[in-house]
């Protein structure tokens, strides 16, 4: 038996609006998410992440392609998929005239969950999201971050097997973000599956078992954060100040990126000493650090933009 919670094959979406040319938001996206996985979609603004998430969460119909949620055709039979999913929409806000406690409780009741279960899950979600002190305040009076935590709590409380989160930690402070990350990790330990979009590369790295980098409606690359970083040819980056004129030799160590006068070289740890000796021999200052997801993302998306 396959373990896929979500599978899309050649998913396409074209937006048509009067007076403007059609926009191809998705151009054949194929994604698989296994049960219990946390998967992130990374991409620039307008890359197609939210469109994919909307189609996957049955909010939008695709132009073509297939999308399955736990084996159910989410395009043709969305009603079969919906009991198994919940979504934190982008820029979603709770009912302003309800408190976070009421918001979570009413949503659970609307999903058909019984009174007692709804109450206990509501309290648990409030505690998980650190909303105890504002649980009985009207949502209209909450800060942007608190409202977002209320939305995440609302969805977490459903205990749906597949959760979609569009920019889940947007507007949150660093402490709140870490709290949300811990909660989301806890959910997958209990068996839930997460698909999220984010602009925060640190969030994607911490939260994701696997990542898909999307650009121009296509999947550019996929894999674990480590795989994406290794694809650069090394796990360390060495930045050589005023490295102009040395690029040719530096390229023999690994991929080079010039940034003003500085040159950054992605290098395998086994060649680090050799590279540093080279810098010292040329009396150049060099700094060493680990390759981050940002380099992988920038290279991947940058190449795609250059190709176009």
């Amino acid at each position, binding site marked *: 038996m396959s373990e896929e919670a979500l599978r899309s094959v050649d998913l396409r979406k074209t937006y048509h609006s009067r007076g403007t040319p059609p926009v191809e938001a998705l151009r054949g996206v194929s994604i698989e998410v296994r049960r219990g996985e946390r998967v992130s979609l990374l991409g620039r603004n307008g890359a197609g992440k939210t469109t994919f998430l909307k189609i996957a969460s049955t909010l939008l*119909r695709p132009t073509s392609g297939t999308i399955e949620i736990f084996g159910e055709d989410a395009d043709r039979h969305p009603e079969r998929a919906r009991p198994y999913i*919940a*979504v934190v929409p982008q820029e979603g806000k709770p009912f302003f005239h309800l408190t976070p406690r009421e918001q979570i409780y*009413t949503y659970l009741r*609307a999903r*058909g969950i019984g009174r007692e279960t709804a109450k206990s899950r509501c309290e648990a979600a409030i505690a998980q999201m650190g909303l105890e002190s504002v649980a009985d305040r009207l949502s209209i009076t909450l800060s942007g971050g608190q409202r977002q935590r209320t939305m995440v709590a609302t969805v977490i409380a459903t205990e749906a097997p597949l959760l979609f989160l569009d920019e889940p930690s947007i507007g949150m402070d660093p402490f709140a973000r870490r709290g949300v990350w811990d909660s989301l990790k806890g959910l997958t330990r209990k068996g839930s599956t997460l698909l999220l979009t984010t602009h925060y590369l640190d969030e994607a790295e911490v939260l994701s078992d696997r990542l898909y980098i999307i650009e121009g409606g296509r999947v550019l690359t996929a894999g674990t954060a480590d795989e994406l970083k290794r694809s650069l040819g090394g796990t360390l980056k060495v930045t050589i100040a005023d490295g102009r004129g040395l690029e040719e030799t530096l390229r023999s160590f690994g991929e080079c990126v010039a940034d003003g006068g500085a040159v950054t070289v992605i290098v395998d740890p086994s060649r680090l000493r050799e590279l540093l000796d080279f810098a010292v021999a040329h009396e150049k200052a060099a700094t060493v650090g680990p390759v981050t997801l940002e380099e992988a993302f920038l290279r991947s998306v940058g190449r795609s933009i250059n190709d176009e």
Partner: protein
Amino acid sequence: MAQPVRSANLPTEGRSLPAFLIIGWRWIGRNPAVAIAPILLPFIFLYFLSLISPAELLPLEIVGAMLFTLQNIGSWVLGDSASWRIEASLQDLFVASPMGRLRYLFGIAFSNLIAMIPALVILGTLLGYVEWDRGTPVPFYAWLILLGVLFALWVLFSSIGIAISSRVKTQREIWPVGNLTFAVLGMLSPLYYPISYLPPAWQLVAHGIPTTYAALLVQGVLGITPAATDTLLLYAGLLGLSTAIGVTIALRLYRWRPG
């Protein structure tokens, strides 16, 4: 192919009433004017009309105010449905759930009905008193028919509000669109006066509006504007048909999941 996760705590059908009862109740509880406005507005118009019209039209005008209240619900439903979708993306939360479109829309209509109930009760009491005072107490069957008509109008105008809300793109459009639609419908149909007061061409136009059948049916049943049983049955049938058409159109037009 993967099998869906089955669990007792994973209902496959949503429920509207428990959630929207709280949503509606909290709304009026925390915004007193929301409860007061639907009560006072019909009375404001009623008072104005009682000053400028013959006294014998009072029962008709009270019934008109009841129908007007239910007609106005369309405007409130339009506002909620559009602002929850546009301002807060709350509709998305419900789409991606087992709730379903019909339950969600019913929930919005129901939560708004809660705010209208006090006005209807007060107007109903006033109607009963005025008719009793005139020596023509409202018979039981007339109350039942009045309730049925009010129910039909609630369904019909909530549907119209829902259908229109789907096409509204910004918050700014909500008020003018609602104002135009529901005020014009109220103006064209003879809610506050006998249809015979209208010029013949207008009468013809008014017969194309469902509220007219509702008004004529209730006025006939109460004996305010006497009509033959066959005619009343015809009005009831047309009102039922209009309601069914309204619901069908609303469900077709409402964008639950854009294509």
